[in-house]
């Protein structure tokens, strides 16, 4: 089963980190990913740019384009991992390894229902 691990954190808190602190944290997370790769479970990983770069498209007959972010929610989606894990227990264990390297925020595990009618080109 593919599990996505979605990283939610207050963007204001994340923006408060100095570059050194951020680099150090990303370095520790990278070490965890090396372990996952060794176990053959590492899928795509993405760090999303701040929500100030976001563009929203509202669905409808004539989709509307709106600049993000919307009204301040407390935590924003800042990135995600995709891991191949045999069970939810295993996915939770993996997410805990990542969570241990982050000072705050929440990780949400969501199983991936693959939708690949077209072969990806990336």
């Amino acid at each position, binding site marked *: 089963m593919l599990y996505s691990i979605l990283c939610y954190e207050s963007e204001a808190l994340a923006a408060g980190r100095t570059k050194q602190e951020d680099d150090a944290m990303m370095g520790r997370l990278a070490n965890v990913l090396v372990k996952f790769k060794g176990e053959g479970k590492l899928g795509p990983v993405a760090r999303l740019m701040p929500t*100030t770069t976001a563009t929203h498209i509202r669905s409808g007959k004539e989709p509307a384009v709106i600049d993000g972010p919307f009204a301040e929610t407390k935590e924003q989606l800042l990135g995600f991992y995709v891991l191949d894990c045999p069970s939810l227990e295993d996915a939770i264990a993996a997410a805990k390894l990542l969570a241990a390297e982050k000072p*705050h925020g929440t990780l949400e595990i969501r199983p991936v229902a693959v939708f690949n009618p077209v072969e990806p080109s990336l």
Partner: protein
Amino acid sequence: MTDMAWIDAALTAARPQVLGALLRYFRVLDAAEDAYQEACLRALKTWPVKGPPRDPAAWRIFVGRNFALDEVRRRNKQTSLPEEDDIAPETQDTQSELADRLDESQYRDDILRLLFVCCHPELPATQQIALALRIVSGLTVKEIARAFLVGESAMEQRITRAKARITAADVPFETPGAPERAERLAAVSTMIYLLFNEGYSASGGNAHVRVPLCEEAIRLSRLLLRLFPANSEIMGLLALLLLQHARAGARLDAENNIVLLEDQDRSRWDSGLIAEGLALVEKAIRHRRVGPYQIQAAIAAVHSQVKNAAETDWAEIDRLYEVLEAIQPSPVVTLNRAVAVAKLRGPGDALTMIEPLAKKLEGYFYFFGVKGALLTQLARNEEARTAFNRAIALANTAAEAAHIRLHLDRLQKDSAPQAGTPERQAT
């Protein structure tokens, strides 16, 4: 479980919001700051034991407000206060109820007002910046003094004087209308831009000390854009700062000498900052509301997108400067455009372009740096030497002077060397 690192980060992150709301209540900066301090102290006492409240920012606003109201009561027992002000956030329920009453858009105007009081037109730019760093960013006087390379007591005095001045000034506390909001945004944007330049233009031995000023400017412009997410000029401002700051690691060599834009090792540019800056430029342009920050960001983007200086699209840069000259005419903009013109049509045309600026820019280091470089390319060495000597006399830092001396040395050795141009033009 609430660890102290989290509390610390949460307190810092919401500082502008909490202090801004307290300023709306008390209308006096000192009173708002006292209330803020007290609220932070109580948070540090309460949160580690009871866990963080549901809305940490609202919690501090109410605690701070009640503390200050208690003070007023103590001083004047005769005065009765409205019922509504009597509420303390004792339970989660009353707390969230109160939090709901705080309108998000009010937070936005609170933060903007807090930034705006620091930008009072009577204050010189350096005082505006120092005040914003102290009040909005919450830097200590010691940290600010260090960044400005002055003594702590001198900075303390500067901030105290600036505060006294804005206390006397009359900043309206009603919810601003659209024109006032736009005016405040413009003033605050300028202040953030100056703050960034204060950190960016400093070169040489102290460069590392001043990087925090650039980072703080970026943090403030992010804050501003989160408040006004559809404002294309603020997108442009943040993009400009990100694209320029991306080059920080390549602007000085190991001996702290200035490395010109065209000579920089571009592999040392921060690709993450560049990617975010480019994304914001693209997003801003969709709005089709041209503004000076967007254009400057677009110029920085042209440089950021090529792997080596020789591939630079100078025609595009010239075109962008032409637009900038039209909407924000200034001799400095024309001077910068001349650098692109020199690349496109040769140093003669560029020199013709900057000669009329001589009077207006007679005290401007970069004018003489560019002039000297153009004259060198035209092999008019004696005039070039005069221009470079003038530049040295006007240099702001030792590194700038050292850089021009390099040109003079080359003039000495070689009659027609390749001259560089100070990197600041090509922002």
